[in-house]
């Protein structure tokens, strides 16, 4: 990053001239959710990108592996967010090759925080990027989640987190469904349920699209590394959720007391 700043500063996100006043219509990504389980963490995102009230893309990918043991999901202006992730991935890989060891999970989270902060000018113009970062901490042997705000504030979440326009609904759903002792399969079902609830109440979040076979992207990070569920696996989970929702449209209900 420092090398890039010195030699080709125009390639860095924060160094651009800001556009003149006026709102730019650009595609926005919507909801990302993450939840921990004993032994790892899952990170999932819906597939919709919107531009104003239009759907600009139905099958967008918003969850990216950052390196072997971490992944980042993006909400906000798609173009800027994808570029930020690309630079983030590059930096982690570069550090690993030059130093011979990987950055610590804290180090990765802090680095992402700085990158978001450098985008503050753009965020003030309505082009915000707010990612969610999840990874497996090899030293502490557990999955961890970091959420961010537009100013680069970094907050570690203990159990689950959501970002993007449908995050309120997703967080509500996870609040009622989350338990400390979830298995890996249960955790993946939990995040798909949360995304379903987000899509249910937020127009910018896409639900599972059975006709086009577009299902949420789910990434599981454990001691063994980062693994994206195949289309088959995620369609199976999404279909199971959908099946139950045909009987109970509001999803599983929690005990009253």
């Amino acid at each position, binding site marked *: 990053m420092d*090398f*890039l700043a010195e*030699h*080709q500063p125009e*390639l860095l996100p924060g160094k651009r001239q800001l556009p003149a006043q006026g709102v730019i219509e650009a595609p926005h990504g919507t909801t990302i959710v993450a939840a921990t389980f004993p032994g790892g963490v899952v990170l999932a995102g819906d597939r919709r990108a919107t531009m104003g009230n239009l759907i600009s893309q139905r099958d967008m990918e918003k969850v990216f592996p950052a*390196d*072997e043991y971490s992944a980042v999901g993006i909400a906000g202006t798609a173009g800027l967010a994808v570029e930020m992730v*690309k*630079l983030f991935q*590059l930096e982690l*890989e*570069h550090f*690993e*090759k*030059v130093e*011979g*060891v*990987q950055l610590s999970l804290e180090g990765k989270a802090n680095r992402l925080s700085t990158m978001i902060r450098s985008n503050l000018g753009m965020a003030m113009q309505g082009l915000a990027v707010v990612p969610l970062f999840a990874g497996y901490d090899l030293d502490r042997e557990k999955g961890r989640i970091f959420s961010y705000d537009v100013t680069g504030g970094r907050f570690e979440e203990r159990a689950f987190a959501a970002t993007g326009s449908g995050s309120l609904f997703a967080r509500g759903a996870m609040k009622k469904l989350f338990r400390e002792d979830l298995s890996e399969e249960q955790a993946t079902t939990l995040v798909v349920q949360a995304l379903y609830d987000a899509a249910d109440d937020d127009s910018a979040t896409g639900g599972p699209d059975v006709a086009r076979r577009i299902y949420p992207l789910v990434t599981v990070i454990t001691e*063994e*590394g980062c693994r994206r569920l195949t289309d088959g696996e995620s369609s199976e989970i999404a279909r199971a959720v959908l099946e139950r929702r045909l009987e109970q449209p509001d999803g599983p209900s929690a005990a009253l007391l």
Partner: protein
Amino acid sequence: MSTPFYVSPQQAMADRAEYARKGIARGRSLVVMQYADGIVFVGENPSRALHKFSEIYDRIGFAAAGKYNEYENLRIGGVRYADLRGYTYDRDDVTARGLANVYAQTLGTIFSSAAEKPYEVELVVAEVGETPEGDQIYRLPHDGSIVDEHGSVAVGGNAEPVSSFLEQRHRDGMTLVEALKLAVQALSRDTNGSEREIPADRLEVAVLDRTRPQQRKFKRIVGRQLARLLEGDGTAASEAEEETSGGSGDSGDSGSSGAEK
């Protein structure tokens, strides 16, 4: 005021080349060779921290003999070059040929600049292709020339006898175990023809394995896996090889970090 002695350019260059060659010859030699599934790097290295081989990019590996601080400098330069290229254009646009050219320029400039001492290093840049025909190995001597190598190449102190030994015995399509054994055999031959034993914990071994599912093909082979490969006979060979290609989940992409853990 005294006038400096006149030294002819020929003599100056010959002296510099002599100086660089002597520096390189002090180090131990290392071997880079093709095998069926990729390219293997083998060298004797008592240090666990100062690597002779390293990953440059997805398909590109780097090997160096000579002075550590000098080739480490070049290695980091290479990683920067490759990462910047890949970020600006695409991951496919980073090639060993491009990288070898940059190294040749750098080494050549340093070698002929009177103000600097020549670098006492000899580099190998290797890129693994989709098929063995696509593999590329470039050797870069201290003066900035590029030699396109096929099959096997040795650099460092005892390079000439080692490479002629390899040339006679290396053939295409060797398994990893065969290639590894041949390389170790070549490295254990002393200048006077006698053989000595190199224990596994003094060997540094890495592969660029085209069958790896990940984008980054570079992987260090360390510890038990290396011992198993060195002992491996014909049957164990295929097993061990599967281990290298498929069972890479544990150290994963973190080829270099895996070595320290």
